Each structure stands twice: as structure tokens, then as C-alpha cells.
């Protein structure tokens, strides 16, 4: 995969003058996507906790708590294990996923009351995740093969770009000794971001979107904002990422995701905590048996 990407970049660089005539925007889009992938490659395995806050139009809240373990798979989509802690009636439910960039994912759901592991259809990547405004496909790993690309413009990421945390005490507290795997805990302090505005067109036939416009910063290739357009090509949702933290001196993860559905007025916030990398997960931690005993 790395080799293929290197060759791809080499070809892109080599052929740039020729491509200026045709598909320049597409090539630049592809180059940005490739850089985005390279900037986040080699993270290996990770775990994190997440609190999901669902809000309806009248502001009524509903809380979900989940934990996620992930394993990077170089030549394919990643593997993921999701454990539900809240609401309490689904506590102990666990979800195992082997994702594939273009085909259907392999997914199993463990129902603790029945002790049953159910293989489930993954066609519904566009369906809501736990009744939230996030679809399954919004939360799956970024793979180059999932989209075709078109570079649109350079834009400032705007006022809504992340607010840097300037309280080092808080940061130190967060980086507790138990969290040994975080080599360096740096905070994004740049006041303004120059972003690439890129149009992504999903190639997966069951995607719920006709296009996704994303804003990706030009230094670190982090996504700051994404606009999702539904099958009728009208704006459906806007996702903003904030409070990016860097782990292992390389990998950036946003602590907060905020998804707003413009058509229903509902929103969902994701607040991430306890990101840990290189905790020694392997294929053995992602099978039907671990699904049954995970807590």
C-alpha cells in the first residue's frame, strides 16, 4: 500500500505539467486525499472512550457512552470493536466490524441478554448510528478508494475552526502517567488555518450521500469541517471537528465532533477522551469470541 501510494505520488508529480490541461482539480483533490492518508498512517492500534449527546429540535438530550478499540489494517479497511455502556438497557452490547473500502463490511453484533452473536447486514452504512445524526459511514475509517475527489479552492477554515486550549495545566492533567503511550501531548495553537476545500464523491453504491465537501488544513491534513449532501443533492448535515490533539508525535485526533442536521434541526456531539495508542492490540482481539467476553 505504502509503495503504491509512493508510486502514485511520483506519477502525480511527474505528470503534473501534462495534467494541467485535463482534470487538474481532480488530481489535486486526489493528491490532498493521499497526503491526508499518509499523514495518518502507521498508528497501529488505539482505544478511546466517547460520550455521545443527542439533541432533538427542542433541545432534549439523550446520552450514550461507548468505548472503541481500533486496529489499523494496511491493505484493507480497519478493524473495530465498539462496546456500549449507556443507555443501560444496551449495556454490554458489542459491535465488531471488519471494514472494506468499497465492498460491504463484515459486521457482528453481540446481544448480551441472549448471549447471541448475530452476523448483520452492513449494507446500511447510511443508517443512523444509535439513533444519532451520525451514520455508520461517517464514523468509518478514511480510505482513499472510497471517493473520487475534486479540489475546489483554498479557504480559511474560518471562525469556527478549533479554539486552541491555552491552559497547559489542564493538558498535563489529561496526560496522566497511566496513559504512557502518549509520547507527546501537544495542543494546536495556530490561530488560523489555511484549508483546502475538496469535494468527495462516494463510490460506494449504498452511500447516503451524493457528495461531501470537506475542509482540510494545509499543514497537517486534518479535517476541520465537512458538509454532507443527501441523495437529492441538498445540504443535509454539517460536521465540525475541534480541539485536535496530537499523539505519538504524529497522529491528530479531534476531541470534539459536532454534527448538525439542517433538515431536522437535530444535532449530535461526540466528546472523546482517553485516547491511547500502541496498547498492543492485534487480530486476536477482534474476533467473535472477544466480542462475547469484552466488558
Amino acid at each position, binding site marked *: 500500500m505504502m509503495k503504491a501510494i509512493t508510486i502514485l505520488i511520483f506519477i502525480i508529480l511527474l505528470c503534473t505539467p501534462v495534467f494541467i490541461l485535463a482534470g487538474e482539480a481532480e488530481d489535486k483533490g486526489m493528491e490532498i486525499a493521499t497526503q491526508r492518508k499518509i499523514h495518518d498512517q502507521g498508528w497501529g492500534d488505539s482505544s478511546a472512550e466517547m460520550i455521545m449527546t443527542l439533541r432533538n429540535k427542542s433541545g432534549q438530550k439523550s446520552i450514550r457512552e461507548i468505548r472503541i478499540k481500533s486496529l489499523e489494517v494496511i491493505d484493507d479497511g480497519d478493524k473495530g470493536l465498539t462496546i456500549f455502556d449507556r443507555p*443501560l438497557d444496551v449495556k454490554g452490547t458489542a459491535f465488531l466490524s471488519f471494514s472494506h473500502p468499497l465492498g460491504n463490511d463484515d459486521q457482528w453484533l453481540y446481544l448480551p441478554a441472549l448471549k447471541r452473536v448475530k452476523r448483520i447486514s452492513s449494507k446500511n452504512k447510511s443508517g*443512523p448510528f444509535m439513533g444519532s445524526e451520525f451514520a455508520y459511514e461517517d464514523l468509518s475509517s478514511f480510505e482513499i478508494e472510497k471517493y473520487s475527489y475534486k479540489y475546489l479552492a483554498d479557504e480559511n477554515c474560518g471562525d469556527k475552526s478549533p479554539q486552541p486550549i491555552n491552559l497547559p495545566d489542564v493538558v498535563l492533567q489529561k496526560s496522566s502517567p497511566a496513559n504512557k503511550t502518549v509520547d507527546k501531548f501537544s495542543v494546536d495553537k495556530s490561530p488560523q488555518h489555511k484549508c483546502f476545500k475538496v469535494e468527495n464523491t462516494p463510490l460506494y453504491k449504498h452511500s447516503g450521500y451524493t457528495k461531501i465537501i470537506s475542509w482540510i488544513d494545509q499543514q497537517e491534513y486534518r479535517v476541520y469541517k465537512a458538509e454532507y449532501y443527501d441523495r437529492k443533492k441538498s445540504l443535509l448535515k454539517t460536521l465540525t471537528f475541534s480541539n485536535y490533539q496530537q499523539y505519538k508525535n504524529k497522529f491528530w485526533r479531534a476531541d470534539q465532533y459536532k454534527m448538525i442536521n439542517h433538515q431536522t434541526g437535530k444535532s449530535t456531539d461526540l466528546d472523546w477522551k482517553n485516547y491511547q495508542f500502541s496498547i498492543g492490540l492485534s487480530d*486476536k482481539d477482534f*474476533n*467473535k469470541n472477544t466480542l462475547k467476553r469484552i466488558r
Partner: protein
Amino acid sequence: MFLQLCRIMALLIILPSLSNAFEFNGKVGVSTMLFQHAPLYKSQHQQYASVLSELEFYHDWNNAQDSLLFKPYARIDQHDNERSHFDIRELMWLHAGDDWELRTGIGKVFWGVNESNHLVDIINQDDQVDDINGEPKLGQPMINLSLIRDWGIVDLFILPGFRERTFPGEEGRLRGFLAVDTDHAEYESSAAEKHVDFALRWSHSMGDYDIGLSYFQGTDRDPHYKLKINSHGVPKLIPYYDQINQFSVDFQATFDGWLWKLEAIKRKDEFDDFAAVSGGFEYTINGIMDSSSDLGIIAEYSWDERGDRGINQFQNDMMFGLRLGFNDAQSTEILAGWMQYLDYSDLRSFQIEANRRIGENWKLLLDLRFFSEHKLNPIGQDDHLQITLERYF
């Protein structure tokens, strides 16, 4: 009685805030069954109320390589003494090695893929008095070694001790003319309920396919019945548990929105040597009518070589079902099923199961069941609505 139970429940809701040494969770619930028709037998009633409690104590150590789970369950029914019962659903020590797991204690295991007929699932006995839908199971004593290999998972089971099926008592509905006498069960094996059973299973996932092959040897979970007259001249229905050998296969293919399912068994018991098959599909349409709801269409056919000789209700039957998942914040779900007995066109049943979360910690469940009146159906008069409210903590 009820007041006392309410006090215990109140205590159980307060308790978790006091404990932090280990995990404590559970649910308590109140439930009522409302029968449409007056009872056929005079000891029965038309309305039943019950309370239930399922607690879960969990502790792990050794970096979660070892864990202990204790899950007691109890239901107290207003009328039916048999439905008022206590069971240890789980009391399990789990040790997880690198590529193996050992479970020692009392637990529950599910095998299979089908919705209507759980043909292959055999480790645990049905807690039939708790619910007739086949989902509640009695805790089974076991030693289970799991070996996790690249070519699949191998499970070995030693099952010391047998659990008798639960049945409604004299005052309970959903039974025939005679209540099953669970105090005088008979066995083929001289070891009776102490017979040690054995099971072996291999299961594996290969791309779109999930497959399981199993073998079981021991006491039949499905009893046969004997009519006996006791010393007072009263007729009694006695459950009789014979010894069986069973090979089984369960298979699912998952293509896009289609789930294709098959379960089959070959069983040799004291009276027969027979095969039974059950299979079908579930097809899910996502986002019906521009909503975020999913509609699943289920069809399953079951066949049993014994036909009318069999004790199994699934002899030549078709089940059609619709599953509506709203994908909303309350996780609302409705499952409707129609079971048609093909050998008897006027024998069928129909049921709707619906559930929805209320607030963060409550859940409301509705079960509506209709049975056709037929000479072969002992519960033809027992159409009912069951309403259950559960509180999780």
C-alpha cells in the same frame, strides 16, 4: 409480599451508588398478562401481575484476564406458583489466555441463526414459564474450553447436571388440560438429572459466510410426556427426558441486505432417529419511505421428519415476519410474526413484539399473541397482551 418486594427493589436501586469496588447492574420490572378469553380450567385466571428482577455482579482481576460474573434472576407471579421462580442465570469464572478461554460455572450459550425455530441451540434449557418466546434460558452448569485458531473457534463443553424445563402451574395459563408435573420428572439415564453431558463445536467466518458444526451427547432438552395416575387416582402429566446424540449445522450467508439462514439437525433419541431442518431469509430495506427506519422481511420454513409423531411444534411450518426498526433515540422496534402450520391450514399463530426506551433508564415492552383454536392447540383460548415496564440501573 408485594410491599416487601417493593422495599427490596428500592434498596437495589440505591445500592449501586454505594458500591464502587466492583460493577453492579441490573434491572427490575413489573409485568401484566391480560387474557382475552375466560379461562378453560377453573383454577386459571384472566389477569396476571408479576414482578421480576435480574441483577448482575461483575468483578475482574489480573488485567481482566480473569473475571467473575454473578447474575441471579427472580420472578414473582400473582397467581402461578410455578411462574414464581428463582434461577442463577450465570455464575461464571472466565479465564482468558492468549488464544484460549476457559469458562467454569453456570452460564448461557447460544448457537444458531434463525428467528422462529432455534433448532440447533441446545446447551441451555428453556425457561418456558418465564416467557413462551424461547428466549429466557435456565443457567447451565458447564466447563467450556474455547480454542481460538486461524481456522475457526473450537468449543468443548462438559455439562455436569441437567436443568428441567419449567412449565406453568395449576393456576397458570398457556398450558393444556393437565399442568405438567415438574416434581416427578423421569429420565432414561439412571443418573437422572446428574447425567454429565458433552458437546463439541467448531465455528468459523469466511468472508460472507458464517458456519457452525456441533455435536451433542446427553439428556434431551425437549421432554417427552407420560400420562400417569398417581396414588390418589389423579392423572398427572410427567415429563420424560431421554438420552440423545445430535449432529447439527448452522449456516448464514450475508449478501448486501440479504441474510440467508439454515439450521439442520440429525438426532438419535430413545424413540427415533430423525432429521429436522429450518431455514429462510431476512431481507432489510433501509430508509423506508424517506425515513431513517429499516424494514426487515423474514420468511423461515421448518420441517421435522417425525411429523405428527414429534414433540416439536415445527413439523412443516412457515413463518412470515416483519421487523420495523425506527433507528430513533428511543430505539423503538416492532417485530410481527405469523406462524402457519402447513399440515393444518386452520392452525396458526400471530404475534407482535414491540419495545421502546423511555427516558434514559426505562423500557416498555408489549407482546401481543393470538393463537388459533384447534384441536391440536392446547393454548387456543390463551390470546393475550403482555405489558412489561423495566427499570435499568
